């Protein structure tokens, strides 16, 4: 036998107790949606897992009303320390049910169990634990003494890290004293609904968190609902742009985490084996379904051949297959639609003259799969060097000098992430200064932590999630002062100083119906 053909090591599904149908979670209870239900499938097998409700306009309205009622009646009257205690409870319940959540996430999303088990779900618990402690310390959030919550937060999240994105949204919102209506992505609603059960176990007051499911139009109805005070969206730049248009002229505070085309810059003095690991982690983690993926490798020309050779050898050890197998490195692509986009852009890369190389892994016969792929001989003008592919596809470009590396890294409308690999500390710091991106990883990549702010420059969006800054995105200063001498006025892009209301023309250009895809 070949040892490297590790025998199957599937994680057990025995601890899952899924229902065949899920309703909407509104005002503390599950209730059937009034839209047409849809199935959620396992992208590794294309088998149905459960039927999910669709929230229509009336359901969205009911959810927003429940959140408003809970805000006015309960949550805004609760002390910070009590809000914190609820969040601590949620963190503990997530830890207790971590394996179940990991298995459910892997089933519904297609990502490997080792990632849901070791990354996604631990970070979910960490996020709630971190923000739980903030709930009674809001004076230190950076928006002045005794800040106020915004009210009802409408949150729309993507399918790439379903429960983790939920935690990034809900934890700071609740800590700051807001109530929430959250819509998970159409293809990955399952763990959000399990999370609703956790909220019931935590005895969170009804209506503080409402979870409504559906496609892009449900999300659109939610963010356009006049009853929401805050819109937080993670997904594609196209949808983010539409949301920014639709909230223009309203007093909704907006934060957007959008797409990226991160540069991973490898200098000739890099710790080479760790750099190769970082390249792999940068683009093949979560099948490349990562907004901050290092999807452009910028390698110094003098070491290009060596790096590519090492990278290819390393990629051959990546194990693609059953996401529930504990040894799987590359799981399923989340949907047929996403697979089609990855294929389309990859084919385009070939047509444009880039050289394509994929690992020779066996592709399962059912489900959605894409072998880890790199393109060499890529030019900055190629589509695969500019467009977010959101799949396990790396474009390799070269540079000769640090200045050229910086120029190429910044040559994109996006600005979310970048990586720097070098043993020279002074160069790392100087290059980090010059990169126009919100998160820079030096000699590492794709690290996340609840205390570390995350978010983009330019068309990668605005606002930060994580840390103190992620908290302030859900707060406003306590009072407006009429005096010029007291700088109590807050200025956050999109926060309107009640100067006017939305014009008729604004609503015409509201968000188009697209589903969230970060």
């Amino acid at each position, binding site marked *: 036998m070949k*040892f490297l*053909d*590790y*025998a199957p*090591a599937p994680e057990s599904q025995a601890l899952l107790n899924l229902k065949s149908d899920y309703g909407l979670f509104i005002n503390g209870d599950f209730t059937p949606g009034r839209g047409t239900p849809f199935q959620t499938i396992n992208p590794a097998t294309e088998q149905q897992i459960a039927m999910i409700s669709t929230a229509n306009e009336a359901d969205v309205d009911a959810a927003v009303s429940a959140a408003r009622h809970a805000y006015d009646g309960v949550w805004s009257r609760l002390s910070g320390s009590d809000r914190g205690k609820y969040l601590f409870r949620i963190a503990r319940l997530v830890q207790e049910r971590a394996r179940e959540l990991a298995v459910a996430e892997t089933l519904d999303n297609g990502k490997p169990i080792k990632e849901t088990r070791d990354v996604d779900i631990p970070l979910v618990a960490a996020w709630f634990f971190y923000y739980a402690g903030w709930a009674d310390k809001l004076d230190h959030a950076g928006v002045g003494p005794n800040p106020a919550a915004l009210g009802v937060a409408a949150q729309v999240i993507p399918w790439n890290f379903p429960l983790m994105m939920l935690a990034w949204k809900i934890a700071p919102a609740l800590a700051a004293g807001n109530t929430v209506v959250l819509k998970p992505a159409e293809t990955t609603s399952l763990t959000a609904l399990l999370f609703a059960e956790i909220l019931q176990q935590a005895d969170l007051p009804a209506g503080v968190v409402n979870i409504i499911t559906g496609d892009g139009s449900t999300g659109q109805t939610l963010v356009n609902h006049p009853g929401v005070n805050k819109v937080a969206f993670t997904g594609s730049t196209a949808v983010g742009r539409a949301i920014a248009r639709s909230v223009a002229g309203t007093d909704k505070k907006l934060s957007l985490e959008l797409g990226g085309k991160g540069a991973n810059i490898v200098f000739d*003095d890099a*710790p080479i*084996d*760790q750099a190769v690991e970082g390249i792999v982690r940068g683009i093949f983690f979560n099948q490349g379904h990562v907004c901050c993926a290092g999807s452009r490798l910028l390698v110094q020309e003098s070491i290009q051949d060596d790096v590519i050779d090492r990278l290819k050898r390393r990629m051959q050890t990546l194990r693609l297959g059953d996401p529930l197998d504990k*040894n799987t490195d590359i799981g399923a692509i989340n949907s047929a639609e996403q697979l089609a986009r990855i294929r389309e852009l990859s084919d385009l890369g070939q047509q444009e003259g880039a050289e394509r190389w994929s690992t020779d892994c066996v592709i399962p016969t059912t489900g959605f799969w894409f072998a880890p792929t790199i393109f060499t001989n890529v030019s900055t003008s190629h589509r695969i060097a500019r467009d977010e592919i959101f799949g396990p596809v790396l474009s390799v470009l070269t540079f000769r000098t640090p200045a050229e590396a910086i120029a190429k890294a910044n040559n994109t409308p996006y600005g979310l992430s970048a990586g720097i690999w070098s043993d020279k500390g002074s160069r790392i710091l100087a290059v980090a200064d010059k990169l126009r991106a919100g998160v820079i990883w030096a000699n590492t990549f794709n690290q996340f932590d609840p205390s570390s702010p995350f978010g983009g420059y330019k068309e990668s969006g605005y606002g930060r999630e994580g840390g103190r800054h992620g908290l302030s995105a859900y707060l406003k200063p306590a009072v407006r002062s009429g005096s010029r001498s007291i700088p109590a006025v807050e200025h956050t892009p999109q926060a309107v100083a009640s100067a006017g209301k939305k014009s008729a023309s604004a609503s015409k250009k509201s968000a188009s119906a697209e589903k969230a895809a970060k």
Partner: protein
Amino acid sequence: MTHSPLATYQPEQRALALIGGEATDANLRRYLHGIPGIDAVGLEARAADLGTRSIKTSSKRWAIDTIIGLIDLTTLEGADTPGKVRSLVAKALVPDPGDPGCPRVAAVCVYGDMVGAAVTALGSTHAAGGTDGTGVQGVRVAAVATAFPSGRASIAIKLADVRDAVAAGADEIDMVIDRGAFLAGRFGQVYDEIVAVKEACRRADGSFAHLKVILETGELNTYDNVRRASWLAILAGGDFIKTSTGKVAPAATLPVTLSMLEVVRDWHRLTGVRIGVKPAGGIRTSKDAIKYLVTVAETVGEEWLTPHLFRFGASSLLNDVLLQRQKMTTGHYSGPDYVTID
């Protein structure tokens, strides 16, 4: 990357060609410091990730038998006697008296003065890398030498130590490098000593005892030092690079072994020559040992999982592996009274 003409060179020529001159401190420093550095956080994260591989059922059974066949069963005590060595040899040959199908270990590893006792005890089952008379894998004799474990003796004493062990029938010599000289930057001295020890491994018939070079990574301290020492040992002609004496903590760790495997991998890419790796000390459970197998297989390839290219320097590991083996055979958990104490 294609193999360069270096592959056809003799080891010494090859080293001199690579470092671009004589093996002086300055030339060696220039060469060793030109090797890319190691980021410790990334290295340790990679090792931890490899450690999460889940080896089950048929893979685990194969792994357990493979581990037994890769063990250098070791006794390195001041209190060692011929009797103790005979007992060790018996265990090496029949690790599990209850299961004749259990494979033999790769070698017994003893102090130089015990080589004779080991050779005698092995008798016809003593085989330097080959099979014994019955076609079963023979057991080798490895001797620690060069004033093991500290290496603090004159070069004359160290070489005499090696020659004695080889003359007594040792198939393999586990030497220690002069860590003091390495840390002081006297790379030439470290290099020359290894070359001299290699020469001392020559037998009367012109063949060589296999040379394992112990870096004592716990004293080298940093991963960059481990990597440089690994290159130095290979350049000087070592057949194996070995982590530790077992007398200094920390001994073998997964990240250190990973970093040494990466050197071996790169040397193979450069020259086409395969060098062995031996983590020694601190590996006590089959669970840990399986992590090493995974790390070898995913770093240099599973063709390295042979006694010629990979060993575990261990003593207590064997019994834990045997307990696991019994569990897999019988289906229920075993206990320490069901394996022999040495």
